[in-house]
């Protein structure tokens, strides 16, 4: 299954679909990094609101994707984590370390724009 990755301005937006196989998850990661590179994205929003569970494998995919995107110079925000997913991640000890999170896509976009504008030293925003 190919996961759609969209672009809005300099920001890539993608939503991980529920019940991705491990293979598809790896392909998603690879596609995302490719897109950051070829489309010169400054930010990435990964929406995980469709995930009704996140096991250690998916947690690692998300974590590593965020780390790799950071190495490519992109700001990353994960949004939409479901409460029951938050609970299990904390209890497992697999919380998404070092990844910025937001409640929803609107807030994620605000964070990304603030981060990418401040990095450019955008004077217009004061």
């Amino acid at each position, binding site marked *: 299954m190919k996961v759609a990755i969209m672009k809005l301005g300099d920001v890539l937006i993608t939503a991980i679909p529920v*019940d991705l*196989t*491990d*293979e598809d998850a790896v392909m998603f990661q690879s596609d995302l990094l490719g897109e950051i590179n070829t489309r010169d994205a400054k930010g990435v929003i990964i929406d995980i609101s469709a995930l*009704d*569970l*996140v*096991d*250690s*494998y998916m947690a*690692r995919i998300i974590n590593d994707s965020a780390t790799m995107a950071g190495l490519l110079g992109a700001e990353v925000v994960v949004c939409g984590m479901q409460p*029951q*997913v938050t*609970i*299990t991640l904390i*209890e*497992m*000890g*697999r919380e998404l370390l070092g990844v910025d999170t937001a409640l929803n896509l609107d807030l994620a976009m605000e964070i990304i724009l603030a981060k990418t504008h401040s990095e450019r030293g955008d004077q217009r925003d004061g």
Partner: protein
Amino acid sequence: MDSLFPVRLDILAQVDIIFCRQKVREIAVAWGFGLADQTRLATAVSELTRNALEHGGGGSCQIVPCQKNGRDGIRVVIEDNGPGIADIAQALQDGYSTHRGMGLGLPAAKRLVHGMDIESRPGRTVLLIEMFLNN
């Protein structure tokens, strides 16, 4: 409720990880488990069926009802005929890593469920987890 059982699923491919955890969730929902416990159990099943596939070369997942101290629960038994876990005590320790630095996720899964039992020897590994209502 008994008409749901017995449930036995083969773990032969990555899609089976998904089938098993979906089936477990379906049963947990039917039994009246809350969303948090449904998710805990399904997540633990996801971890353990992946182990059976990736480390055990494939196996099976059985879901049966169980009881403890008068409380109803769901028991999931995941078996494989792989090389086995050399040191179970070590595998149950946080921070122990084997395959690609991830370990078996056993301590993580154990924290999610109400009970876990492990038996393992070369050729046969059996993981038993239980989740009870109103625990």
